């Protein structure tokens, strides 16, 4: 299952890609920004950085069941992301779900600068 995400800047691209991924897993209108966790990652370029970002957030969901809905960036360049990620723990008794995402894949993964900002294409294994 794939997403095409556009953003006016990297912040919008990173936020909307993350929200898009979580929205595949569970409807996000059920969650509040109750708990915050910091994520710091480095990479060689924007494409690698976005891939690492989604992989890290997916790992945090898979192991801690955290669904993030708000992101505050302390630093975001093409080579580094440092963000405070806020969300809520998924509780199968209270929250409805859509589907399990097994992994963020490399297939067709693309981040490009466009006239209006940035665009990413992401395919998830379901």
């Amino acid at each position, binding site marked *: *299952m*794939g997403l095409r995400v556009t953003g006016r800047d990297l912040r919008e691209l990173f936020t909307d890609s993350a929200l898009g991924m979580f929205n595949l*897993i*569970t*409807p996000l209108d059920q969650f509040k920004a109750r708990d915050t966790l910091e994520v710091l990652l480095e990479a060689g370029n924007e494409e690698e950085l976005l891939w690492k970002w989604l*992989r890290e957030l997916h*790992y945090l969901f*898979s*192991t801690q*069941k955290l669904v993030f809905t708000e992101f505050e960036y302390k630093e975001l360049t093409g080579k580094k992301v440092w963000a405070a990620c806020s969300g809520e723990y*998924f*509780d*199968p008794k209270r*929250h*409805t*779900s*859509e*589907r*399990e995402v*097994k*992994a963020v*894949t*490399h*297939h067709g993964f693309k981040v490009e600068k466009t006239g209006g900002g940035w665009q990413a294409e992401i395919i998830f*294994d*379901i």
Partner: protein
Amino acid sequence: MSEEIKLRKIDDYRWEIPKGTFPGMRVPGMIFADEKLLSKIKTDQSLKQVANVAHLPGIVKYSLAMPDIHWGYGFPIGGVAATDPDESGVISPGGIGFDVNCGIRLVRTNLTEQDIRPKLRELVRQLFNHIPCGVGQSGAIRVGKEDGRKLLVQGARWAVQHGHGAPEDLAHTEAGGVLEDADPDAVSKRAYERGSDQLGTLGSGNHFVEVQAVDTIFDEEAARIFGLEKGQITVMIHSGSRGFGYQICDDFLELTRRALSKYHIEVPDVQLACAPVNSPEGRQYLGAMRCAANYAWNNRQCLMSLAREVFEKFFGRSWQDLGMDLVYDVAHNIAKFEKYRVNGKEKMLCIHRKGATRAFGPGHPELPKDYQSVGQPVIIPGDMGRNSYVLVGTAQAAEETFGTTCHGAGRAMSRSQAVREARGRSIERELEAKGIIAIARGRKGLDEEQPAAYKDVNDVVEVVHQAGLAKKVVRMQPLGVIKG
């Protein structure tokens, strides 16, 4: 639409992609399909993927594709590749898939459709309530660190020793439910974390537990030996290695991507990332992959135990009294070392099966005594609205496909397309009108998994039957299903 690839027709069920079709192909591709299935196969990129797999170092004879082939990450789903470690043959995590040892098991009962039809909805509801399924559901079976390592090495024997099932279940599990030489030290911390609370959980997507009735017998003798008869209720379980296996695949796709340049391996798609079987990276992946395979066999063993508990409570009889014996358990995403004759010499080959099922014929030494005379049961699930099958392996499969046949119906529609097609409809009510009770945890589960999203399993099975890669034994019809 797929890039047009010229196929050479061998016969009504065999199509070759000649070796010279793309520069760098080391062997030809071979697709088992009829005209009808081939026209569907041509709508995605899977034929190109068959040709891509033919580039792998050390690949032997053919890059093979079963009739349920469809597009996958790197390797097609429904693909089979044998590599020769003595000829720099490689192991590729993409040739096994994210869900290592995803597989199917079939449990028989001595119940008939008349026994359960009046209370079917309640039975399915109790299965849904008792078996953890869907996003974020934890399993009730918690495993400590030391015990976790034992589980990864011992395979399903661990589950049986901990009260989940009986020793005779192991004889009816492929490889006895364990791959030897699993290496818990090759597994990342993240994989351990992701697998820590998922033992005995079904997952979501195409995983399910289904209550079925046998509706047709094709081979009386084999059916008798497998303990199957017309009208009998069976329970089918489809799941794999859960987050533990997904993480292992993810970790080693990264490692083998780096190995491509180290070993000067050129592949047409980076998702065919691989490493020589006889390299530190190859050995490390094999050690971790075997842990994931063993986790999956424990998982299906625990899921079967949970299903037996539901039936025991529901009917007030023990599972032994209900005749709930395991017919067989097969893996359909796995790599194994098996011996085959290549150019007149017996060779130990690394067989990648991704969405493909082992199908050993009669007399194979790996089969349990009671199945020696007929061959291995091959369990083939269909979609929620049509049929499932039990086939039996053949000696011909050993000659042609490294002892392999199809694994299911194969998707005909993407998940997004299936959701679009389901708009304004209730798949639950459509199934109910056919007498099938379906309960799913995820809101889109039934839409994405609707029968029309899959090819007709009857067509797929007919091809492998006619081509001699497995023979039909019995067919089941679905009565009730739970999904994540």
